[in-house]
Structures are given as C-alpha cells and as structure tokens.
C-alpha cells in the first residue's frame, strides 16, 4: 500500500500568478471538510490527469500548518521536464477537481532545536514558509536566508518580510548579492539546526561548509527531491505480475508500473524516501539510478532499483513486482 492509494478529492480554489515562472495553487476539500493537519516541511502528491497520462508530482505545502481549510503549493514552470509543471501552469484552473495525497514529511523541523536557520534557493522557499509559521507559533527563534536570481523572481519575499520582519534576508544574484555561508554558519548559537532546500549545488555547499565548521551532522537537514528525469522509452518485465510494460519517454518507471495496475509502494516519488525500493531479478544493461537512497555498493550490485526516478538502457530489465 502507498500513500497515493488514499487520495483526497479537492477542488482548486485559487490560482495565483506569483511571477512569470511561479504559480500558486490553493486546494479545498470537495466537501468543505477540514484537510489533515500537517507539520512544516511536509509535501503532498498531486495527481494530474493529463490527456490520458496519469502523472503524480510531489509539492511542498506552503500554507500554515495551523490552517486546515485549505492547502497551498507553488509550482515552478519547467518546460524541459516531463510536463507536470506545464500541465499545472496551463491546464489547472479554479473550480477544477483534482486528487492529492495526505501530507508526508521528509523534511521536518527538529523540535529540539534552540534555533532554526533556514537557507532557501529559488522555489526551495516553499517548505520554509510553512516551517516559519510553525516555528513562530512554537516561539522558537528562526532566521531565513533566501537566494534568488532577481528581485522579481524572489517569490513571496515581500509578504515574508511583512510577516516576519528581519527574521528574513534576501540575496539576489542580479544585484551581486550572495549568502556568506562561512560567516552565517560560524555565527550561530549552540543548539542551532540548519535546513537547506534548493538547487543541488547549494545543498552541497551548505552541507560542506557546516561540516568543515564542525557542525554535527544531526544538526544539518536538507530536502532534495528529484523530478524524475525524461529519457528514452524502455521495456521492463514485471516477474510476479507476469507482464511486460513500456516506460514512455516522459513517464517514470513508477508511473508505468502504476498504470499497469501492479501494486507498488511509494511516498516521495523523488528518490528520497526509500519506499519504492524494488528487487531487480535480471538486468542486462545499465540502470541510471538517479536516487538519493541506494548506496554505491547497492548500485554496483545491480540488485536494487528505485522506480520513482530510475531509468534503464539495455536489453532486459526484470523486476520483482
């Protein structure tokens, strides 16, 4: 069983163009019921029925965890991706009915922290908006440092500055500003936890800087969802189900398995949670792993695959599904 077997029917209550590349979507329960409570950093999976293809993408919840009448997410348009964000931007209108999963949190605040230091890059701002609401309510000090390409792309910066004042600082590339990580991380009180969400390079820089400065690993948290990459179509044999399936160019292996009606676990759909881990029965070719879950040894053994983000090139791939 997986989180996506228990979808919540919602209606799109609002669509807001935040800037040319980001739109915010708000959902309410179709019955007007309360939506499940959640914690800052949680995401939901949004199901998209795109002209016969069923796509499911994870998006961080950015509404306050203390509001249960509606959820909000932000979607950054990516025209080179698989089409999920394009679908959201082009097709999703207020009044439309959709389905979403219950919230899942793989990027929770460490509630023992004396202070939360949040570092966001671009669209990575969204989980922090909910986390700031949570930290604020719990009365735990926090600071947000937000890097964006330009002032116009720094989504929500104005409203965050209004709500949280000088707890938030923004750095714009086009103004020649950047976060001085060394300085920031060396000037924190004991008991501070740092959280980073943004592009891969940014996460790596924060983790590396913190490590070099002697931060304990348990105080460094990052969220790194991968969008499943596009690629060449490939065929897979599902051994238990006894069927062959074809994974389309813009489809993930996970989506193709789901489309065949074969049961499979999943949760993050982004190579981070480990739920979809599947045994490889036979492999004649190369698995492009792409996930954050398997270690090098497991990859080299070619006995495990994470279908949510991995692809295959070669003669035969057979899975224990």
């Amino acid at each position, binding site marked *: *069983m*997986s*989180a996506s077997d*228990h979808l919540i029917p919602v209606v799109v209550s609002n669509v807001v163009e935040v800037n040319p590349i980001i739109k915010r979507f708000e959902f309410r329960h179709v019955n007007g019921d309360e939506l*499940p*409570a*959640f*914690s800052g950093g*949680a995401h939901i999976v949004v199901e998209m029925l795109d002209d016969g293809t069923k796509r499911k993408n994870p998006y961080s919840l950015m509404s306050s*965890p203390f509001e249960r009448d509606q959820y909000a997410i932000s979607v950054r348009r990516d025209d080179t991706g698989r089409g999920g964000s394009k679908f959201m931007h082009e097709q999703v209108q207020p009044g439309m009915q959709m389905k979403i*999963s*219950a*919230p*899942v*949190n793989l990027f*929770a605040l*460490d*509630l*023992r922290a004396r202070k939360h230091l949040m570092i966001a890059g671009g669209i990575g701002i969204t989980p922090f908006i909910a986390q700031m609401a949570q930290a604020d309510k*719990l009365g735990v000090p926090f600071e947000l440092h937000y890097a964006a390409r330009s002032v116009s792309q720094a989504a929500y910066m104005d409203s965050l500055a209004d709500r949280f004042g000088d707890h938030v600082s923004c750095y714009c590339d086009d103004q020649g500003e950047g976060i001085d990580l060394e300085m920031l991380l060396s000037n924190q009180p004991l008991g501070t936890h740092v959280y980073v969400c943004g592009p891969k390079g940014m996460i790596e820089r924060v983790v590396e800087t913190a490590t070099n400065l002697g931060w304990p*690993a*348990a105080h460094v948290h990052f969220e790194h969802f991968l969008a499943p990459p596009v690629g060449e179509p490939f065929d897979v044999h599902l051994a238990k189900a006894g069927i062959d399936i074809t994974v389309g160019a813009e489809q993930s292996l996970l989506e193709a398995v789901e489309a065949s009606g074969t049961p499979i676990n999943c*949760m993050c759909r982004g190579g981070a*949670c*480990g*739920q979809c881990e599947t045994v490889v029965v036979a492999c004649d070719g190369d698995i492009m792993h792409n996930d954050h879950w398997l270690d090098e040894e497991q990859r080299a053994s070619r006995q495990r695959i994470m279908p949510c983000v991995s692809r295959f090139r070669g003669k035969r791939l057979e899975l224990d599904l």
Partner: protein
Amino acid sequence: MTIQFKDESFRGDFTYANSPSNIPRFPFPFPEDEYMYSTNIEPHHAARVGSPFENAFDVDEHYVAEMKDRALVLADDPGRCQALPHMETAGWDFLELVMVSKARDYPDLFKLTMDGGHWHWINKPLQIDDTFTFGDSSTLPCHPMEYIGRQVQGDHAILDQRDGNLWMDAGIITAQADWSLDFDIGMNFFEWHAPVPLAHELGVFQRALKFLLTLPQGQPSRRLNWTLTVNPRLDTSPENYPKWGPDKLTVTPENIGEKVHLRVELQTFWRLPRSNAILFPIRTYLMAMNEVVTQPKWGRRLHRVMRDLRPELVNYKGLSRYHPILVEWLSQFDDGAPTSPGIFPD
C-alpha cells in the same frame, strides 16, 4: 452496544477475569501452529465487528478498572509518565487523535465538541467533563500526553523522528511487559530493542524501522506481540520485579489454568500530524489459560506453539520456570486435529 464495565483488580486479590462474551474477542496472537519472529505488520483498518480491531482504540469491559490501576501506578511512581521538552506538540497530536477517534467510535461513551481552539471533552465512563484550549497546555491539569494517557487503555510511547531513526522521547507506560520507560527514554530504535535475541540477526528491526520511518499519516498499522504472565498483573515493570518475579514460583499443575495468563499486546503505529512523531500504543490484553482453552482451536494451537518454542525464546520471555508444566497441561487440549488458519476462534 453498551459495555458493562467491570470492577476488578490487577494486583492484591487479582479479581480480574474475562466475561464469557469477552473471551472470543481476545486478540489471540498465533495465526499458525508455530511461532517465529516476523515483522508481521498489517494495516490497522477496521476489521471484524466485535473484534479488538473494530475501532481505532479498543474500549472493552476492563476500561474503567485499567484506568484505576494506571492511576495507582502513577501515584506511586510519577516517573512512569515522562516527556522530553520537545514532545509537547506530539502530546497534543496524541490527545486529538484519541478524542476524535473515541468520540466517533463510541458516541454513547465519549463526546468531543470543538469550537475553534476551544474544546469540550466528555468521558462518561470516567466521569470527566472538561473544557480547554487546544495547544495551550496551561489549560489542562497536566501535560496533554498524561491527560489523555490516563483515559486510554494500553501504554503509549511517542517516538520522535530525526536523523533517519526513531527516539523514545515520551511515554506513559504503566502496564509494561518487563521494560522501563525510565531506562529507555531518549534511546533510539536500535538501542531500546537491543536485548531481543534472534531478531537482530534476522534483520527484523532494520525492516521494521524502515517501514516506520515512512509510515504515512492517516494509515496506521498494527501487529500483535505476546508473552505469558503469572497472575493478571498489568504492571510487570522491572522496577517492580520483586513484586511479580516470585509469582513464577507459585505455578503448579493444579493452579496453572487460572494463574498463567496469555498476555497479548496489540501494538499500533500512527503518524502524528503536527509533530511528525510516531504514536506507539501498546494495548495489553490478559487471558487466563482456563479462559483461552474454552476455544478449542486456541487450546490446540497454543499447545503446539508452546511445545515447539525455541529455547532462546522460552528464556527471553521468562517462561523457563514453568514452561514444561505448561506444555504438559496444554497437551490435554490438543486432540491432534488440524487448526484453521488465522487467529479468530472457529
């Protein structure tokens, strides 16, 4: 259905017993004639009307008596209820889950009215009628975990999730089978399971942890665990070993049917929404051997399970002292007939 709550004791004169109608709803823990460790986790969705799996939190005829026993333990030893400071939000999550579930599942016994943050809770069996502000601990007489923990059968541990592990950072534990919150508090999943033999080699814990770390909200799971206890004593904590340890010496072939109890834990696992912690309720059910064998399938099967139990488990579960007598006594209920699969009586 209204429940007749029993007035009974789990200590001293041990007047605890199961009514004939309560016996078939006992969560007998052996689906097969043989017992081995397994993760055996399944979704905790409503199952079988009249079974302990019918509702999110089972309430049965022992409810009021168990809550009185808990109050006695806590009065004696407040350390049985502890929460590290960061677990307050989780305590509120726990309170909400129990109140919402019980009010929904037992409307004749419990009532919850929510007016924004202003809540009104009525627990008829325990004659509680309180109002408070959700999330504001100063409006309750004690920590939210303790408040609701005194109103729900079973022990409750609350596990914080961080660093890819679970940490036992809060709990109200008064009816445990020989472990101690005071000892385990602050430990992680592997630390508090350290003493269990065999399971580590089998990789059971690795798999269970992985499962729990990704436990989704709104989709609780459950498993059964078991041991045996001499006398229907709920509190078999290590702190009290001098009180219950010697009981083992009192078992004779004549009294074994009434003295030895099958002790089953219905363990459930819930992802809590605001704290992202995991609530781990451990509901204990006790049944005397004499009561168990009133169900022929159970008598037969229990004999086979006990007879073939691996020695390290006999030892770990603390049964060595009376295990041979028990197997001998149970053999009279085993006619050699096959047993049907599953745990429910025929």
